[in-house]
């Protein structure tokens, strides 16, 4: 491992001692604000705590400890699999659409044409809107009868679906809104990867007669692969934690078609007073996300290029 760190740079004699002052604040935060609560939540997941009795008061564990009961109940029930299916459906639609949209935005914004800075502000507006406002607007836009979306589709002779009110379309509608909201954010990250690419590569390719499309796929995408990798990792983690838009727009409905992991965790913990169950649910989610990210990390070696 140390060799690896050194290969990427860093003077040979450097090590923990040099790194320590740089790491200290962040490490302290990691311990107090992340690992410690995490540890406590792991503890909670082995209890039947209701979320109302005082946490970790004397005798807390004696009173509430139930071992692996929560995990057993979750893993043997049908709910987890249904909810995972819904989350999976979201991810399968969301990730490719979001990546395509944000790549397109980044590409358009990397241009040096006039008016780009105006577009840069406009594309970012959805990101700057709070989820509460965005969800309310989209609920009205997607209203089957009175909403702008179906009125627009009707102009082209298309009979729009019931969107958020239709079991089959609700998740697709959530994806649509999420892509609208997130594309600007990820587009900007991709843009910062894109502008870092050395212009001489493009000049060389132009001399070889490569077109825009070819240059995009052969030079831009490979050379910005670290940024794409970052976006994919973050987007996947976020997608698993899909929450506010669902709470405001569908509340898990219709007919539980948009019930997802965090929505369940929230409901069990804060509506049904089953905090132990919710904590176990979130640890299962944690493990799933970790496994997916580990796979991505493994796969990155095949396509991510750090030598740009």
């Amino acid at each position: 491992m140390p060799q690896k760190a050194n290969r990427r740079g860093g003077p040979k004699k450097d090590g923990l001692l040099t790194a320590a002052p740089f790491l200290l604040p962040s490490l302290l935060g990691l311990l107090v604000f992340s690992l410690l609560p995490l540890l406590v939540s792991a503890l909670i997941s082995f209890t039947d705590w209701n979320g109302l009795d005082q946490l970790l008061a004397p005798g807390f564990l004696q009173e509430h400890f139930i071992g692996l009961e929560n995990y057993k109940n979750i893993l043997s029930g049908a709910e987890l699999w249904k909810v995972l299916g819904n989350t999976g459906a979201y991810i399968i639609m969301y990730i490719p659409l979001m990546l395509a949209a944000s790549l397109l935005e980044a590409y358009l914004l990397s241009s040096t044409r006039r008016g780009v800075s105006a577009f840069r502000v406009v594309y970012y507006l959805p990101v700057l809107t709070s989820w509460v406002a965005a969800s309310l607007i989209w609920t009205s836009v997607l209203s089957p009868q009175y909403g702008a979306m179906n009125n627009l589709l009707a102009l082209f002779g298309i009979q729009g679906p019931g969107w958020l009110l239709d079991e089959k379309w609700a998740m697709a509608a959530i994806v649509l809104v999420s892509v609208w909201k997130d594309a600007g954010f990820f587009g900007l990250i991709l843009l910062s990867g894109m502008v870092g690419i050395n212009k001489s590569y493009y000049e060389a390719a132009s001399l070889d007669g490569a077109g825009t499309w070819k240059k995009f796929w052969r030079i831009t995408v490979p050379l910005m692969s670290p940024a794409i990798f970052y976006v994919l990792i973050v987007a996947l983690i976020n997608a698993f934690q899909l929450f506010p838009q669902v709470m405001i727009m569908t509340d898990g409905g219709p007919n539980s078609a948009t019930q997802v992991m965090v929505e369940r965790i929230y409901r069990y913990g804060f509506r049904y007073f089953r905090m132990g169950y919710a904590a176990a649910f979130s640890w299962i989610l944690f493990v799933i996300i970790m496994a997916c990210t580990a796979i991505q990390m493994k796969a990155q070696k095949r396509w991510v290029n750090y030598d740009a």
Partner: protein
Amino acid sequence: MKKHLSAILASALALVLLMSACGPAASDPTKSPDNPDPKPSQQQDTPPADQPVTITYSNYNASGGNEETLQKMYEAFHEEYPNITVEIETIAYNDYFTQLQTRVSGGTAPDCYELNIENFAAYANKGALAEITGVDFSGLDETSLNAFNVDGKQYGLPGKFSNVVLFYNKDLFDQAKIDYPTADWTQDDLQKAAEAIRALGDDIYGYYQPLTYNEFYKVVAQFGGSLLNADKTEFTINAPENVAAAQMMADRILVSNVQPNEVQMGGIGDWDLFMSGRLGMMPTGIWAFNTFAEGCKFDWDITVEPGKEQKATHFFSDACVINNASDKKEAAATWITWLTSSDKAAAIRIEAGWDLPAIKDQSTLSAYLDITPPANRQAVFDSLNYLVVPPVIEDYSLMSDIIGQKLSAAAAGTLTVQEALDQAQSECQAQISLK
């Protein structure tokens, strides 16, 4: 090199242990004690009455327009009890309960606060609330008081109450040339009128009573059924009366279509549909008066909801409760008693049109009758004769969510009514243990 790593991890672990070890032990004198056992309200843990004391009161009902009304009430209270200062925290409804739960479990809950009926039983059964003693709340309405009484102990005082009446659009009744609804109506009369109004136009609907948990338990009571057996030890969700009740509600959407389905509603709210003048009748809360008085460009009025085997109308109330871990219970009890039952608070409340105070005294309430529209305000009080209280159990939210989800599937036609209620019954049995 490995050594360094284990050193990091070891010190990390040490810090974690240190934190968790000193955590529960360290006690802050300003915070509530770490004692989770329910403790009866004691006189000695409150300062003597002549000492100035500051308490916190957290609520959600004042948010969105009545913060000033609540402030006015407090000022009147403070004049009478200059020694008690109340810090009022008004929080929006949506996240109020998340915040409250976190504060209760973290040991920093406000001294007294507001709870809705869905959360009340859970908080009371889990020992978060103190029994309210040593104050006189005899001026309060008994039905309302009973809703917050657990095993003979009063854990909450009704801060306000409201109920549900049948609202109707007079203009649409005139157009359909039928008589206005009266207090004697049954569900069958309502169905006939709804059909006549539905016939007026493609996007005009007769009635709107969503197939939700809240409407369902009320209609069930009208059909003589109930969701739980008498001593609350068994679910009876799929009993024949209940199925008949849900069937009638579903048929209005799916068969006669006097009531719009979700897609016909198109995502607009039921109040908006009524205010747009395209809905004949709807049962809804009396808290709609102000909004409808402003928003309706047609004549409307109210009456007592129709029944079936018997009449049954909704009753909604919020409880003012005292935190069991508070060390200022006496002052808190004084404040919430004054807030809920004093004449002054009641008068301010009525003047602001902020629901109804849950008091017995009819003379204070009479001011309420003079405000129009609606002309037939008396129906608000007439409805009180038929109140049904929701089946309060500890896992109330879970039960209502399960039943609500199955009912909405029935309303969409994806399940038959019988299937929906059978599934609701078995899921409730599997997930909720009744005492």
